[in-house]
Structure formats: structure tokens, C-alpha cells
């Protein structure tokens, strides 16, 4: 039994914190909202070796696991850093699992080529299709239609709100053939990517429109493709965990130094209990991130459940923590002067990306109901 981080993982965490601390990421998040340039930290990621985290060592990567990628994502989330890993890492996990593509994987591992995963949500018991986020509304769209011709295919369709798509060198797109089967296509050009920015200036998002865009078909096991969707869920959950840690630290510091009626506000139960609630939600999220990281490697059949649960817990924790961060600070917490709104904005947008939190909660229920029927 060992369900804690290894020394190597702690070192990875510390190194990531150190590398990110050299940049004014939180100030940059505010400037981005004010119309300033987004602070792109891809070079920082390259120097640290993050683009190759999940690529095998003999193909130029670090050969690490899902948990390691989540730990880096948590550090990025903690300081609201804009690092294009949410798009890149799942793409590399699919290509790495597919075998071959050694030259491309080497360059992806170096970060010379940046990939973005254009994801589709795997089918579930209530929805038999591979679906993608729509530009607006509750109804999910079908994944782009793929016409396969030998080892190449062309894709037609739109995928909205794709993390890290703008500026990506290659897109790894999940489409479906006329029979609804998933087809993965590596699209190098021919896709239209409309950069969109909403509410949180640190998120690089794009609407990807494919009009007969062609590329090589990537031959990948369907389970590995499903895992990539859930890996993205795990990464976004990890970003949230890091942000909750930061929000709790800021809240505690202020609750100790701000006095009302002759005593620190952190001594009042109303404040103290709310911050313990943040701690409770945070530790629940951490346990589920560890579960997801462990399952990615050691229990792949449980990974969809684990990552979905982590996503639900992380979103809830981040929502609550960022609201408490504002409340503890009082009026100033709700102003542009303070960092709290930046965390709040991050939380609200994150919770709606990649199928949204509700979709993950449904997946948790689906897994358990399926297990119950099988039992």
C-alpha cells in the first residue's frame, strides 16, 4: 500500500512551481482581460520537458504517467498560467499509444511542434454517438464526419471551444465515419480555427471548422481514444485542484490579518467553517486525482469513472473556493483590484469546457449503474 506521491513526483511538482514562479502569471491573467497579450508559457513548458511527459523515453519523451501530467497541470492552475498542455498532452497520449510516428513524436516531445486534441466525448448508455461541444446550447453535435480513403481521410464538421487549438501546429481530430465509428485524423493544415476568448483571458480556445480538411488516419485502439477524453477531464480537474489550493491559502492569510469587532475574522465560526469546507472539498478532489492517476496506469477500465469523478469534485471545489475567496475578502474581493475575480472567472469557464461538469457527473452515475447491473 502506497497511495502518496513519490519523491520524484514531489520533485516534479516543486520544479514546476519554481519554473512558473519566474513569471507574473496572475498579473498577466488580469492584463489579458484588459485586452493585453496573453502570456504564452510554451517556452517554459519546453524547457521543463512538459510537452513530452507522456511520450515514451525511447521516442524522446519523459515516459511518465497520467498523474505526473496532472501534477504539472495543478501547478499551472495554481497560478492561472496559460500553458497549452490541455490540448497537447491528450494528443500526445493518443499518438504515443498508436505506435509509429516516431519523428513527429520526437518533435512533439521537444515542443517544436505543438499539438491540440480536437476531442469527442465517447458514447454512453443514453447517447450512442461520439459527440462534440456545440458553439451554443444544450444539444451536443455529432463529431465531424470522416471520409476515409486508405490511410488518409477528409473531415467535415465543427467542434467548438477546443482548448489550445489556436496556433497549434497540428490538430489531432476525432471524427466518425458514416457508421458512427471513431476515426482519428492528424490534420496539419486546411482546418479553420477561429480563436475565441471568453471570460477568462488565460484560456486559449478555438472553434475548429473542417470543410473537407484532409490528413493521415491514426490507427489507434478505441480504448486509448476514450482514455484521451478522460485524460483531458483529469487535467482540467487537476488545474482546479491547484487553483483551490491557492484560493484557500489566500483566504486563510486574509482571515488571519483582517480584524473586525476586535478579533481576526478567521476566529469566527462562520468564516472558519466555510474555509474548512474548502479544505474538505479540496482533499476529496486530491484523492480522486490520485485515483485517476493510478487508474490511468494500473486500472484502465476504471479510468473513465475515476477521471469523471475527479472532474466533478474539482469543479465543485473550485466553484466553492473561488466564491469563498471573494466572500472572505468582502467587497474588495469582488473588484477588479483583487485577484479573486480572476480565480472565479477561471472556475466558471473551466466548469463548462469539455462537455461540462454535468456530463462528467452523468458518466460517474453511468459507470456505477453499469457495475450494479453486472453484479
Amino acid at each position: 500500500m502506497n497511495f502518496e506521491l513519490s519523491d520524484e513526483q514531489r520533485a516534479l511538482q516543486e520544479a514546476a512551481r519554481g519554473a512558473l514562479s519566474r513569471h507574473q502569471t496572475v498579473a498577466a491573467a488580469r492584463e489579458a482581460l484588459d485586452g493585453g497579450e496573453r502570456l504564452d508559457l510554451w517556452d517554459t513548458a519546453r524547457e521543463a520537458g512538459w510537452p513530452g511527459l507522456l511520450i515514451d523515453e525511447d521516442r524522446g519523451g519523459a515516459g511518465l504517467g497520467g498523474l505526473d501530467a496532472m501534477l504539472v497541470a495543478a501547478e499551472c492552475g495554481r497560478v492561472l498560467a496559460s500553458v497549452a498542455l490541455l490540448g497537447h498532452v491528450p494528443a500526445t497520449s493518443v499518438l504515443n499509444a498508436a505506435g509509429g510516428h516516431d519523428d513527429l513524436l520526437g518533435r512533439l516531445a521537444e515542443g517544436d511542434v505543438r499539438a491540440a486534441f480536437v476531442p469527442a466525448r465517447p458514447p454512453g448508455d443514453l447517447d450512442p454517438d461520439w459527440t462534440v461541444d456545440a458553439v451554443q446550447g444544450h444539444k451536443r453535435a455529432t463529431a465531424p464526419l470522416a471520409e476515409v480513403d486508405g490511410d488518409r481521410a477528409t473531415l467535415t464538421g465543427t467542434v467548438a471551444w477546443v482548448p489550445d487549438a489556436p496556433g497549434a501546429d497540428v490538430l489531432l481530430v476525432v471524427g466518425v465515419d458514416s457508421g458512427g465509428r471513431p476515426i482519428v485524423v492528424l490534420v496539419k493544415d486546411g482546418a479553420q480555427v477561429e480563436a475565441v476568448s471568453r471570460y477568462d483571458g488565460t484560456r486559449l480556445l478555438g472553434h475548429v471548422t473542417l470543410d473537407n480538411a484532409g490528413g493521415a488516419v491514426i490507427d489507434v485502439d478505441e480504448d486509448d481514444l476514450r482514455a484521451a477524453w478522460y485524460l483531458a477531464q483529469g487535467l482540467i480537474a487537476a488545474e482546479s485542484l491547484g487553483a483551490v489550493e491557492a484560493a484557500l491559502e489566500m483566504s486563510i492569510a486574509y482571515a488571519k490579518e483582517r480584524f473586525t469587532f476586535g478579533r481576526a475574522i478567521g476566529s469566527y465560526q462562520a468564516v472558519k467553517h466555510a474555509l474548512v469546507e474548502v479544505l474538505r472539498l479540496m482533499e476529496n478532489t486530491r484523492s480522486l486525482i490520485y485515483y485517476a492517476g493510478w487508474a490511468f496506469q494500473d486500472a484502465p477500465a476504471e479510468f473513465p469513472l475515476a477521471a469523471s469523478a475527479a472532474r466533478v469534485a474539482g469543479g465543485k471545489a473550485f466553484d466553492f473556493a473561488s466564491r469563498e475567496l471573494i466572500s472572505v475578502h468582502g467587497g474588495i474581493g469582488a473588484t477588479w483590484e483583487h485577484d479573486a475575480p480572476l480565480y472565479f472567472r477561471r472556475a466558471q469557464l473551466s466548469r463548462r469546457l469539455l462537455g461540462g461538469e454535468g456530463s462528467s457527473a452523468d458518466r460517474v452515475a453511468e459507470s456505477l449503474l453499469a457495475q450494479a447491473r453486472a453484479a
Partner: protein
Amino acid sequence: MDLNDSPEQADYRTKVREWLERSRAEAPVLRGPERIRDEDEAVRAHRGWQRRLAEAGYVGVAWPKEYGGQGLGPLEQVIVNQEINRAGLPGIIDAIGVGMLGPTVIAHGSEDQKQRYLAPMLHADEVWCQLFSEPAAGSDLAGIQSRAKREDDGSWRLSGQKVWTTNAQISAFGLLLARTDPDVPKHKGLTMFIVPMDAEGVTIRGLRQITGEAEFNEVFFDDVELAEEMVVGNIDDGWRTALTTLMFERLTIGGGSEGMGYRADRFAEALAADEAAATDPEVRQRLGALATDLIALRFSGYRMLTALERGQIPGPEAALGKVTAVRAAIEAGDLIADVLGPDALGDNEWSYLISFLPGLKSAGGTEEILRNTVGERVLGLPPEPRLDKGIPFSELRAKEREAAGAAK
């Protein structure tokens, strides 16, 4: 990360599993329609089962060998508990004694006390109960009013009332916290005693709960005589002794949610059986949310075990697991009742669950007092100003009475 046993632990687990399979026929049936209905007979059979487990070395696994334990680690005890659960067999009858009170005696008791009391406790020849909480002292445990006065011959006279006492009606002894010096601040004048439950002047009365069952008791003490050697630890140093018990209580309760049966798969089974519910998006959202918390708890448990295995003592935050377990189980009961309708409130496990949880919320420390403790000790937030610091207990009581009178 590795959820597997070490080779030694795996061997131990196999040994336990095989023993349980061989001994299955000897285990009493205490739940379900086949259960032993007669209460006395059920208690007798349950005690017999603990004795069998003890003889095989599976009770008090982490106790020192010299007192009948196995001298193994807390993880081996967890393995035993897991295997008993897995086999669907009952655990021991005196989990409170073996888990909390025995370890307190081991930590603070005299050698004579250890020799006299520990082995019969382990074998359930003598069941124990915890006599701490009182009607007017729960969260503020140091405010207890049960009073023990010293006689000239060194013996004690005890009067007062305790409450929420599980197993009092079947216990041979209780571990009791009493006030021995009211003229010093309240944490200082307390002493821990061992009380024979059959002593003259002890009255036990069952306390029915929302479930309709009486799992707790009230216990009254009317001038009960206690011999000098019944003091555990030092006189007027009972608070330190009590903290040891409370630490073991946190370990028992914080790590026990799965043992309490609040598992996501159990709730999912109830809902999967109803096709309309299983495909209803709202039901699924609610199940997804509560299951997320229960699964988190399972893996928090593994983190706690890792800490134990490394020789670290989990902090008060481990107790937050109880908050999560109770909340998620309340959500589950609510959801299942919404799905099944009034029938869920009949004579079945769901109505029992729904009725049991409001009380469990306060058991082993209310949620509010727990949040205070964690907020102060883990988050480092300042304590609330207190009106009882440094004041002799007798004076404090007088002030409280005066304030309560003024409010009338």
C-alpha cells in the same frame, strides 16, 4: 502509487481469508431476515464470535503481544477488518473497547490494570463502554459535571449522569471521566476511572432513537463507590487520558465509512433496479454527485493508511471523512426515497438509513465542533475567544447559571 499489499501483507491477508472461510459456520447471522431475533441470544453469539476471532489472533492485532495482541501494525488490523467485511461476516461486538478504551488503558493504565482488564476485553468475556458525554457536556467535553469525591480511605464516591452510551446494557466495565476538583479551571480537575457496571448505584436506561431502536443508553450514578485502584492515569490528569481515547476515536470513525456500509455501489444497485430512474438525467446527476464523494472517501482512506504505514498519525482532518460520508449518505437516502416513494420509508434498510443519519451527524463530535478543531489545528485559524479560560469550574458554573437565569 501502489494499492497492492506488500508480499508480507499479502501472505497475512491470505491467512486471514482462509481462516475466515474455514470458520464461517461458527459466525452468527446478525443481519437480514435470517438473523438471530432474540436479543440476548444475539449478544451471546456475537461475544462467542469475538472470542473465536481473538483466539485466532485477529482481535487487537496492533496491541502489544504482552497484553494479548499480535504486536502488528495498524495496517494489519485494517486487513483483518477488510477481510471480515469482504466475507460478509460480523465484526467484533466490542469495537469501542478494543479500538479506543483498551488502547487508552495500555497508554495510561497501571500494570495491574493491564493484567486484569485487557485480556477479558479482547476475548469479549467483559464488554466495555465509554462514559464521557453528559446531557450538558458533549462538544464541550471538559464541562462534564459527574463528580467523584475522595474518601478518607482513598476510595471514591461517584454521582452524576452519562449519555449516548453504546453497549452500556451489556458492559462489565465503563471508562468514565469525572470531575475530581471543581475549584480549578475545567480541564484541570478531571480524573479517569474504571467503573464496574454492576456496582450498586449504577442505573442503565435505554434511549430510543429516530430509528425506533435503542442503540444508546443513559447511565445514572448514585453515590457509587469506586476503589482507589480504579483510577486510570493520574488524579486530576484525566483530560490528557481522555485525549488519547479521542484520538483513537477519530481513527475509528474517520476511517470507517466503508465499514458503515455507505458505499456508492450499494446505492447504485438500488437505483439500477428501477429502469425509469436509471435513465433519468436528474437522478443520474444526483447519483453522480454523491457517488463522487463516496469514491473520494475510499481513496482518502488509502491516503490515511499510507500515513499509518509510514508511522504518521493522521491529523484531525481525517475526521472530515465522517462529514463527507454522512452528507453523501443523506443525499443517497433522499434520492432513493424520491425514487421509491413512500415505500422507501417502510420496514427496510432505507428507512433505517434515513432515520439513523441525523443522529450520526453528531456522533463522535458534531460537525460544528469538528470544523472548529480542523480550522484551528490544520488551517491555523485563530480560536474563538473563550469565556471559560482560567476560571475555576465551580465559578464558571455559577456564572452560566446566572446568565441562563437572566435570559428567562
